[in-house]
């Protein structure tokens, strides 16, 4: 078979990592350019990831680092699922970096850009790695940089929630580490494929305990219901560009890691029933908490919890269509929530308040920002012709395809949450457009560098909403990769 | 009574119907009104002659001014009279509308009602009995028959003068002139 040449996926991690460390040096040379570094880095990642798509669709790319063969080397497994997420990450990273050009005005910008790059690099590492310990390492990179970024503004609320996040996050990390340790102790390997090959089914207690440890550890970052208490604080007090990334990327990466472990390593079909409920409860709690919020960022943060719940639900259906729905929902959530946070960022910046009531009349003052915000809300509620509709549609379809009463009941609950979601998001729309503001000052549109990423997000939301078929093939293969343990094993172990 | 002479009906239906369908405004100005209830109920039964009290001036064509007319009442009388539809007939009942009667030197009663609205006939007495009403009605029939009950035409012709008299008492009236 003819070998196809492609860019080494290692560069996806290596280039941003290297750039991140160049930043402090560059600071002394050409300070003005540092804010362009993340832009460049993630543009590169985005292009590389996109060029990899056709190859990955044929077979997974295995990259071995450290010379030895699998299962003993550190390796990257670039499958459709990983690549899908890495595209999302680099896209979000690229656009948010553009946004940050103007948005980040205060604090030590150098730190911001380094941490931002590290955060997303960690995320890319998590989704691309084929090794359970590397997963932990990248995960820690992600987490630690996000702790720091949450407290970036240095105000009281930021620091407080950063500490809270740190405490809970480190408990999570340690639980994860304990889990990994237990597994390693039993099987003597850290390679996911190798582990998966050895663990046929998760039935013994010695397997369950590490599984629970790992799930709990990852579940904290993935913001599943009882473990997500850090999220509202952290997301609401971080700078909006960071909130966008945290909401749109970080928790989804955590969820992906969790699902990868559950599906690939443990093949824990029986655990999915539990996750189903957990997902719906997360959804319910998230949306209900968001319902009566007056602080917009908190509201969006709670809404993220809800969305994660929906994704968990979709994954837990554990059918190909369910997983496709989950992945699609991930994409749509990334786009929607990033857009919402970015728009909110400048809205808060202009009004100087996070209270929804202070956004009155912004539809007049910041027409484009408000329009993008509106598109984001319509999409997140799931109104056609936006992308949120397609994803919710897929999830409903997958759940109903099971043809069980249980799923109908759960879907009824999901409908209830969607109604609640509609209620609070439409309230904001009304505030933006249909309430008169007190001060009559003229237009104060967001900066052009902020509008461009918002525009791209909005455009993607609309285009993917109308033509979801364009990415469905990719998503299907991602879903089947995650679901189909054996083909993963074959592709990694040869 | 020529009510059932069909020939007359065919010749002058207007006159005949005006004669035999006298609906009176049920308007109580003074003590004379006390004579109206017996005349329209069982004892004297005015309905025999087609006379019934009408609920409002638009539907009536007979105006019985029963008793003294105070300044305040006069306003209402003028208004009511003007709202009645033509042809319309007025009868002053009792001596007070004629010349003030026992209120001849009262400061707030009208002495001569026909200065303010035209009167087609008078029933003198204080107080006249119900029979007098019927006598007045038969006289009115005759007047109608002979085209002499023309108070309303007089009112229209001499409206300026009547209006001037009315305004002399009140200064100015609330409503615009009936005729230009």
């Amino acid at each position, binding site marked *: 078979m003819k070998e196809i040449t492609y860019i080494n996926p290692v560069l996806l991690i290596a280039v941003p990592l290297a750039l991140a460390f160049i930043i402090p040096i560059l600071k002394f040379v050409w300070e003005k350019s540092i804010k362009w570094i993340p832009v460049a880095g993630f543009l590169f990642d985005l292009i590389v990831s996109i060029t990899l798509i056709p190859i990955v669709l044929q077979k997974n790319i295995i990259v071995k680092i450290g010379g030895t063969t699998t299962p003993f080397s550190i390796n990257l497994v670039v499958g459709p699922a990983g690549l899908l997420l890495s595209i999302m990450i680099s896209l979000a990273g690229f656009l948010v970096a553009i946004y940050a050009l103007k948005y980040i005005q205060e604090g030590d910008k150098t730190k911001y850009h380094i941490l931002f790059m590290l955060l997303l690099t960690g995320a890319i590492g998590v989704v691309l790695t084929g090794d359970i310990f590397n997963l932990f390492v990248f995960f820690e990179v992600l987490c630690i940089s996000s702790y720091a970024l949450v407290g970036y503004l240095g105000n009281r609320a930021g620091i407080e929630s950063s500490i809270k996040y740190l405490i809970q996050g480190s408990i999570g990390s340690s639980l994860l580490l304990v889990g990994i340790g237990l597994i390693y102790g039993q099987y003597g390997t850290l390679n996911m494929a190798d582990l998966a090959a050895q663990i046929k089914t998760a039935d013994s207690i010695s397997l369950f305990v590490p599984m629970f440890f790992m799930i*709990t550890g990852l579940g904290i970052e993935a913001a599943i219901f009882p473990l997500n208490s850090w999220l509202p604080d952290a997301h609401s007090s971080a700078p909006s560009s960071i909130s966008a990334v945290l909401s749109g990327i970080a928790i989804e990466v955590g969820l992906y890691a969790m699902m990868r472990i559950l599906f690939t390593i443990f093949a824990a079909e029986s655990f999915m029933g539990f996750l189903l409920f957990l997902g719906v409860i997360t959804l319910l709690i998230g949306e209900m908490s968001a319902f009566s919020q007056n602080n917009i960022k908190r509201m969006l943060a709670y809404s993220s919890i809800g969305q994660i719940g929906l994704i968990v639900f979709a994954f837990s259906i554990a059918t190909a269509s369910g997983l496709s729905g989950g992945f699609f929902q991930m994409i749509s959530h990334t786009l929607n929530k990033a857009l919402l946070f970015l728009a909110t960022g400048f809205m808060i910046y202009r009004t100087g308040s996070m209270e929804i009531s202070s956004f009155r009349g912004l539809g007049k003052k910041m027409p484009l920002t408000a329009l993008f915000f509106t598109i984001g809300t319509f999409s997140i509620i799931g109104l056609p012709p936006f992308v949120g509709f397609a994803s919710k549609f897929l999830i409903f379809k997958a759940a*109903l395809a099971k043809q069980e009463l249980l799923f109908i009941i759960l879907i009824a609950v999901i409908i209830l949450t969607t109604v609640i979601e*509609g209620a609070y998001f439409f309230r904001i729309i009304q505030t933006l457009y249909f309430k008169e503001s007190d001060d009559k000052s003229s237009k104060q549109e967001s900066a052009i560098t902020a509008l461009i990423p918002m525009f791209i997000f909005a455009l993607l939301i609309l285009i993917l909403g109308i033509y979801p078929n364009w990415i469905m093939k990719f998503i299907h293969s991602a879903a089947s990769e995650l679901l189909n343990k054996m083909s993963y094993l074959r592709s990694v172990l040869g | 009574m020529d009510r059932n002479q069909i020939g007359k009906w065919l010749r002058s239906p207007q006159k005949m119907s005006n004669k035999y369908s006298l609906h009176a405004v049920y308007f109580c100005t003074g003590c004379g009104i006390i004579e109206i209830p017996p005349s329209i109920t069982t004892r004297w039964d005015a309905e025999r002659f087609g006379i019934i009290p009408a609920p409002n001036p638009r539907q009536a064509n007979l105006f019985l001014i029963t008793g003294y007319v105070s300044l305040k009442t006069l306003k209402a009388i003028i*208004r009511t009279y003007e709202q009645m539809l033509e042809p319309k007939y007025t009868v002053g009942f009792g001596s007070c509308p004629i010349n003030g009667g026992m209120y001849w030197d009262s400061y707030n009663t009208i002495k001569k009602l026909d200065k303010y609205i035209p009167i087609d006939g008078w029933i003198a007495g204080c107080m006249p009995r119900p029979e007098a009403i019927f006598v007045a009605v038969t006289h009115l029939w005759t007047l109608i028959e002979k085209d002499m009950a023309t108070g309303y035409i007089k009112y229209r012709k001499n409206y300026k003068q009547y209006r001037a008299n009315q305004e002399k008492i009140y200064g100015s009236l609330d409503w615009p002139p009936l005729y230009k």
Partner: protein
Amino acid sequence: MILFYMMIFAFVGAFLIYFAGKSFPRIKEILAVVISFLLFLFVALLYGKDFQINYHNFLGFHLFLRINMFSWLFALTITFLGFLSIIFSLSYMKDKKNNAFYYMNMLFVNIAMLGIVLAGDLISFFIFWEIMSWSTFLLISYKKGSALPASMKYIIMSIIGSLSMLIGILYLYDLTDTTIISQLSHIIRFINKGDVIFVVILFSIAFGIKNAVIPFHNWLPPAHSEAPSPFSAILSGILIKMGVYGFLLLFYVIIGLDIIFHLTGLTIVLNVLAAITIIFPTFLAILQNDAKRLLAWSTVAQAGYIFMGITYGTELSVAGGIFHFLNHAIFKALMFLAVGAIEYRTKGIRDLNSLGGFIKKMPFTFAAMLIGAMGLIGLPLTNGFVSKWLIYKTLILNGSPFLAFAALIGTWGTILYSYKLIHNIFLGQLPAKFENIQKAPFSMKMPMMILSTIIIFFGILPGIPLQFINKIIVSFGYHPLNVSLFGIVSDSGNLNIINILAATFVIGVLIVLFFRSGRKSVRVDQYDNYAAGSFIPKEKYSYTNSFYAPLDRFLNSFLKDYIDIFYCKSAALIRHFCNGIRKIYTGYVGSYVMYILLFLAVLIFVQLNWSVF
């Protein structure tokens, strides 16, 4: 593909209006009128066509647009009323800010409705349905202030409805493996009855909410009264009729006659709901003091008639239901426009207690309102008569006297509130502050004139619309009605409008001649009026305040919108509950850590003890 290009053209046009309107204010109005007229023309030219096209592929579903007699009639009504109300908007919206946004959304709503009736499969039906929902939401909110809670109510009900419809569509898809309407109608007979009922219930929630069937009506009165009047006309005239379209589509196209007739329990329930929907809103309408809210309740009640017609399921009733849809669209739009004209001239007053005597100032609007009300009541020689006659007749002769009673008594209620509306706005004393009110401008008069003409025209020649409707019910599988130009022939009592018309005409001429032969009457003004001998006190000599006071006292004690109260209470309860839930996030990090460890501990504990996973 002509249908698809039409939709694309319309969408592009809508955006064009918005962006052109930003820079060239006059152009947007011209564009809006031209585009809506072209849409009307397109649809009118599609008469008699019957085809469907695949225009898009969405997540593995083939999306179709199709046209046949059934959707043509609805599409024509939509585009026609859309065109008229946009013309009406020209002066109504002239002084308002941000009317580019208004025109764009107006077109969006029209296009979305057009999409609904032209949809050839359920997925595109749903997509257009949702587009309609949110664009309607934006339009209802347009007037700000008290419009905001109204539009919230609307959108929440709407989301509930559309999601349940989505579930219904997907459930049906799982059973039949298709969403294309023409295929569904063949496959549906292989599905068992329970599933059909389940699907019908799910769809009925969606359509019932749009059609404002009790108990789903609560969004309608506030939404209709708070929306801009030209849009209220659309809202009441056709938007809620999308529910009717949906019901017709579900019952007679997808499920089909032979199955729906065997679901007797279901149809009885729906009929009873329809009867309730006729009676209660009618009496609630009598109690209203806001002109548009009164009309809104009236819309709910009339929607009940339509619903009764289409769920009763005989050919007369279905024909009557469809015809009543058409008629209601016309006369209710007319009445909303007339109220809109009043609102426009009085700078936003629509409180029935403070108006009066406008007949002297706006005689044309009065005539329009009168004709509209006559149609609404269903007086002979107006269109409403024929459709109601059809419904009543079938209800009586098919042995449902109680339903017929609901329908007939509803008509008397209709008289009461219609008269109240007319009296309190146009009759009685004109308050002195409205002395200088001007006549309605031409762009308002024109739509009203057209609609009034149609009411009379259809009333005298009901055969013309009934021929179209005949084709529709034949396509549903019914026997055609025996329709002549002037009425309906059947073995149990005919209807012949020409007799009534001729008699009316002859008697009318005779009476008018008789009337004219009397003495010419003198014209007097409103102050020359019987007031027990005194000159009438201005501003006080009017009986518009609480017109039906005794009835109000009687009804107020027990007649309330209990369902709305229930919904509001439960919404408050949910809000309360949500606030409680939020307390989980205590803000104290110790409890958070406890959650985490507890979660882990419980998982391990449960697994150790019972091995559930």
